[in-house]
C-alpha cells in the first residue's frame, strides 16, 4: 500500500513539474513573441507610409491573380461576396467560385445575379478531384467563372480552382469573408518585393460581427454585442498581431489562414495541392510546402503581413464556437502528426527547431497538460503536496499572465492600426482582455481537449460552422 502511495506521490510531483514547466515555456514564448511583434508591427506600420501601392496597381509587371472561393450551401452570402470580390482593387484579377455540390440555392443565386450561361468547357485536372457538373460564365464578365462540382469537401473544391486557374498566383478566400478593397494588393506586396521566392502570403483576419456593412464593404468598425464574440476579437488580435507576426519575424511561419491567403500556383501543384487527410487544409498545405522545399532543396519564403485585412464572421453561439475550436485543434494535431519528421529536425531551420515543437507541445499537447492541470493541481492540494498559498498564487499568476498577453495584443492594435475608433470600444477590449482568462479561456481549452481526443480516436469529420450574418447593414 505504502509503495502505491509513493508511486502516486511521485507521479503527482512529476506532473506538477510538467505543468509548471509548460506554464513558463508557453508564457515565456508568448511574451517573447509579443515583444518581437511590438517592434515588428510598429515598424511595418511606419513602412506603410512609403509602400507604393499605386506603383503595384499600375505596373504591367504586377502578375495576375485568381481569387478562388470554395462555397458549399452559402446562398445567403455568396452573391454579395462575389460582388464585393469583383470590386477588389487589383490590376489583373480573375475570380473562380467553386460550388461544392451545394444543396441550397447557391448556384442558382449566382446564375441569376450574374446572368451566367452553362458551358461545356474542357477540364484538365492536374490534381485529382470529384467530377465537374458544369462551368458557368457570362461572356460580358470574362473574369468570373463559376464551377459546379460534386461534393468533395473544401480541399477538393480548392483543388478544382487550382486546376482551372491560369495565373501564377492564386488567393483562397472563404465565401463568407469580406475583403478590404486593397487587401489583395497589400497581400501581394511582400511577394513582389522579396528577392527570395515567396510562395505564400497571409493577411490578417478580423471579426466582422458588430460592424456595419454596406455593399459588401465594412463602413463602420465596432465591437460585437455579445461576450462570446468580444472574447474572440481579443483572441484574434492576439493570434494574428503577435502570434503570427512573431513567428513570421523568426522565419517560422507554420500557419497561414486559408480564409485569406495567396499561394504560388506551381509550387502548390508540385506539392500535390490541398490534401484531404486533415480538417485544416491550410495549415497542412503550409507544412507540406516546407517539407517539399527541404526535400527539393528550394529556397522559399512564406510571409505574414498584418495590414491586408479580410473580415470574417466569428461563431456567435457556444455550440458553433465549440465546433470551430474542436476542428482547429483536430486539424493541428493531424497536421503535426503527419509531418512528425520535422520535429527538432535542423534541416527545417527555425521551423524544425522552434516553430514545430512549439506548435506540437504548447498549442497541441499543451491543451491536455493545461486541462489536466485544472484537476491534478487541486488534487495535489487535497493530498497536501502543494501549500495552499502557492496553489492560489499559481492560479492568480496564470490568470494575470493571460491578461498581460491579451492586453499586450490590444496595445499592439492601438499602436498600429487602431481599427476600433471609439475610446469606449478600446476600454471594453481591455476589459475583455482581462475577463477572457476567467471562464472563457477554460471553456475554449475544453473544446481544444475534445479536439485532441477526437484526434486520438481517429475522428476525421469536418464540423461545419453555420454563419448567421452578425454584421449590420
Amino acid at each position, binding site marked *: 500500500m505504502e509503495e502505491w502511495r509513493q508511486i502516486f506521490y511521485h507521479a503527482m510531483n512529476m506532473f506538477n513539474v510538467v505543468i509548471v514547466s509548460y506554464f513558463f515555456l508557453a508564457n515565456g514564448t508568448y511574451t517573447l513573441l509579443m515583444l518581437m511583434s511590438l517592434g515588428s508591427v*510598429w*515598424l511595418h506600420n*511606419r*513602412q506603410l*507610409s*512609403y509602400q*507604393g501601392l*499605386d*506603383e503595384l496597381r499600375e*505596373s*504591367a*509587371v*504586377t502578375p495576375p491573380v485568381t481569387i478562388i472561393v470554395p462555397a458549399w450551401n452559402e446562398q445567403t452570402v455568396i452573391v454579395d461576396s462575389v460582388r464585393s470580390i469583383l470590386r477588389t482593387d487589383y490590376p489583373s484579377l480573375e475570380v473562380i467560385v467553386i460550388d461544392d455540390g451545394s444543396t441550397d440555392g447557391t448556384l442558382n443565386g449566382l446564375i441569376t445575379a450574374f446572368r451566367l*450561361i*452553362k*458551358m*461545356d*468547357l*474542357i477540364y*484538365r485536372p492536374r490534381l485529382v478531384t470529384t467530377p465537374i457538373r*458544369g462551368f458557368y*460564365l457570362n*461572356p*460580358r464578365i*470574362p473574369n468570373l467563372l463559376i464551377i459546379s462540382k460534386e461534393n468533395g469537401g473544401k480541399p477538393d473544391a480548392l483543388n478544382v480552382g487550382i486546376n482551372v486557374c491560369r495565373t501564377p498566383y492564386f488567393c483562397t478566400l472563404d465565401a463568407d469573408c469580406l475583403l478590404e478593397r486593397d487587401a489583395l494588393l497589400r497581400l501581394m506586396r511582400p511577394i*513582389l*518585393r*522579396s*528577392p527570395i521566392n515567396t510562395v505564400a502570403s497571409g493577411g490578417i483576419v478580423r471579426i466582422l460581427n458588430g460592424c456595419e456593412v454596406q455593399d459588401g464593404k465594412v463602413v463602420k468598425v465596432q465591437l460585437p454585442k455579445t461576450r462570446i464574440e468580444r472574447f474572440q476579437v481579443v483572441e484574434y488580435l492576439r493570434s494574428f498581431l503577435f502570434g503570427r507576426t512573431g513567428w513570421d519575424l523568426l522565419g517560422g511561419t507554420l500557419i497561414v489562414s486559408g480564409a485569406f491567403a495567396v499561394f504560388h500556383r506551381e509550387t502548390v501543384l508540385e506539392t500535390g495541392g490541398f490534401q484531404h487527410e486533415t480538417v485544416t487544409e491550410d495549415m497542412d498545405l503550409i507544412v507540406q510546402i516546407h517539407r517539399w522545399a527541404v526535400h527539393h532543396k528550394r529556397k522559399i519564403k512564406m510571409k505574414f503581413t498584418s495590414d491586408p485585412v479580410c473580415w470574417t464572421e466569428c461563431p456567435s453561439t457556444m455550440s458553433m464556437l465549440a465546433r470551430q475550436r474542436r476542428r482547429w485543434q483536430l486539424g493541428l494535431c493531424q497536421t503535426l502528426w503527419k509531418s512528425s519528421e520535422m520535429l527538432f529536425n535542423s534541416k527545417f531551420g527555425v521551423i524544425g527547431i522552434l516553430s514545430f515543437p512549439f506548435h506540437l507541445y504548447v498549442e497541441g499537447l499543451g491543451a491536455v497538460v493545461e486541462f489536466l492541470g485544472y484537476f491534478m493541481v487541486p488534487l495535489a492540494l487535497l493530498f497536501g503536496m502543494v*501549500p495552499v*498559498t*502557492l496553489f492560489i*498564487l*499559481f492560479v*492568480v*499568476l496564470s490568470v*494575470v*499572465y493571460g*491578461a*498581460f498577453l491579451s*492586453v*499586450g495584443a*490590444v*496595445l499592439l492594435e*492601438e*499602436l498600429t492600426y*487602431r481599427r476600433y475608433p471609439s*475610446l469606449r470600444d*478600446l*476600454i471594453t477590449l*481591455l476589459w475583455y482582455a*482581462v475577463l477572457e482568462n476567467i471562464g472563457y479561456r477554460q471553456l475554449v481549452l475544453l473544446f481544444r481537449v475534445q479536439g485532441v481526443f477526437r484526434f486520438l480516436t481517429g475522428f476525421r469529420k469536418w464540423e461545419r460552422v453555420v454563419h448567421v450574418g452578425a454584421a449590420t447593414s
Partner: protein
Amino acid sequence: MPFLIEHITEVVVTILFLVLLGTGALMVATIARRQRRDKYFQRIDDLRQRYSPVITSLLAQKLEYERGLAVLKGISGRDRIFVLEQLCLEKRPTLDQVPILRRLCEDLGLVKVWQQRLSGRLDASTIREALGRPGGLLERVGRLHFLVRAKAADNLGIIQHRPSWPLLVKALDDPHPDVQAVAVRSLATIQEPDSFAPLVARLHAVVLKPSSTLSVRAVKTALVSFPLKQTVGLIPSLNYSNRRIRFLATDIIREIVERHAAWEEEFVLDVKVFPPELSDVFLNQLCFDENPDVRARAAPVISHLEDPRATPVLLTLLEDTQWFVRLHAVRALAKRKYLSQALQVAQRLTDLHWMVREAAARTLLVFGRAGSDHLASHFLRTEDRYSREQIADEMQRAGLIPSLLAQYGSGEDGAEGRVIEQFAQMGKTSYLISVLQSSSERDLRKKFLQGFGRHPDPQIRAWVRHLATREPDEELRALAEATIHGAVSKGES
C-alpha cells in the same frame, strides 16, 4: 522540503507582482496612447480642414499661387514639416497637378528637407519636428533612420523632382533595402533619361549577385515605366552573355512596346521610335537565341516592327521546338495586319500543347469574320479531337453561340448548321440550349427542332420534351410532340 517551497513562493510572488505591474502599465499605455493620438490627430484634422481647401484650389489653379503659398507658409509649430507633408501629399497628384505641387514643395522648403534626409543629414528643424509627433523621434534614432530616408525618397518621386535624380541614384547603394526599393521606384516616376543606365546596371547587379537585397521585379518594374526611346540603352544587355539578363532585357522592351501598343490602335515600331540597330538585334539575334524564353519574349516585339523580315521570323517562331515560344508567336500574330497569315495560325490549332491551340483559336477570332470562318472550317474538317474540343471551348467562351444560332435561324444555308451538328455530336449543347430557351425567335426554334429535334443528345431531348409539354405556341408544341413520337417509333422500328 520547506525551504524549496518558500523559495518557489517568493519567486512566484515576484513574477506575479511584475506581471501585474506590466499588465497595468500596458493598460495605461494603451489608453494614454489613444488619448495622445486623438489629441494629436485632432490638431492635424483641424489643420487639414483649414488648409486642404487652399491646396486643392492651388492645384486646380483656382487660387493665385503667391496667395496660396503665403497662407501655407503661415503654418507653424514643431511639426510644421510633417503637417505640410501630410497636407501636400495627402492625395496622389494627377499628372497636370504635379508641376504646381513640385513648385509648392520647393517654395515651402520641403524639397530641401527631403533631400537632406535622403542624404542622411540632419538639421535642427528636422529634430525639432521629430520631437513634435508620436514616434517621430524614434524614427530618427540610429538604425531606424532608414524610415526617414525612404519616405524622403518617396516624396521626391511623388512630385517628380528631376534635379534630385543623382541623389536617388546614390540611394540605390543605401545600406537599407527599403531605401533602395523606394529610390528605384522614384527614379521610375521621374524618368530622367540619364538615370536609365544606372538602373540597367542595377538590374545586372541584382541578377548576378544572388545576395542582393533588391528584387529583380522591383528594378524591372522601374525600367518598364521608361519611354520607348530609352530602350536603345538595353542593347548591351540584349547582347550580354548571361541568358537571364538577355531575357530580362527582352522582356522589359516587350513590356514597354506592349504599353505603347495599348495606347495606339495602329501602333508600329518604325525607325523613328525603334532604331535599326535595335530591330536588327531582335530580327537577327534574339529570335534565334539559345534561351527559349528570349525567343518567346522577342516575338511580340517583332510583331510590331515595320520591317519586311518580321513576318518570316514570326512564322519561323510558330514552328519552334518549345511550346511556349510557339504560344508567344501565335499570340503575337493576333493583329488584323496578320490576317494573311490566318492559314499558318490555323495550323497551330492542332498543336500538341493545348495552350498553343487555345491561343491559335483566339488569334483567329481576333481576325474577325475571316478568322471565324477559318476556325469553323477547321472545326468541321479536323479529325483531331483535341483541336475540336479547343475550338468548341473558345467559341463558347467568346460568346459566339448566340450569333451562330442567329445565322442558322436566318435561313442561310451556311456552315452554321454543320457547326451546330458538330457541337451536338460532341455533347456540348448546354450553351445552345440555354440560348434556345431564352430565345423568342420562333423561326429559329422551329428550324432547330426540325433539324436537331431527334438528336440523341440528352439536353436536346429534354428541351424537345419541354417544348412538347410547356410551349404555348401550338404549332411548335405539336411539332415537338411529333418529333418525340417520330423518335420513339424510329427507336421501336
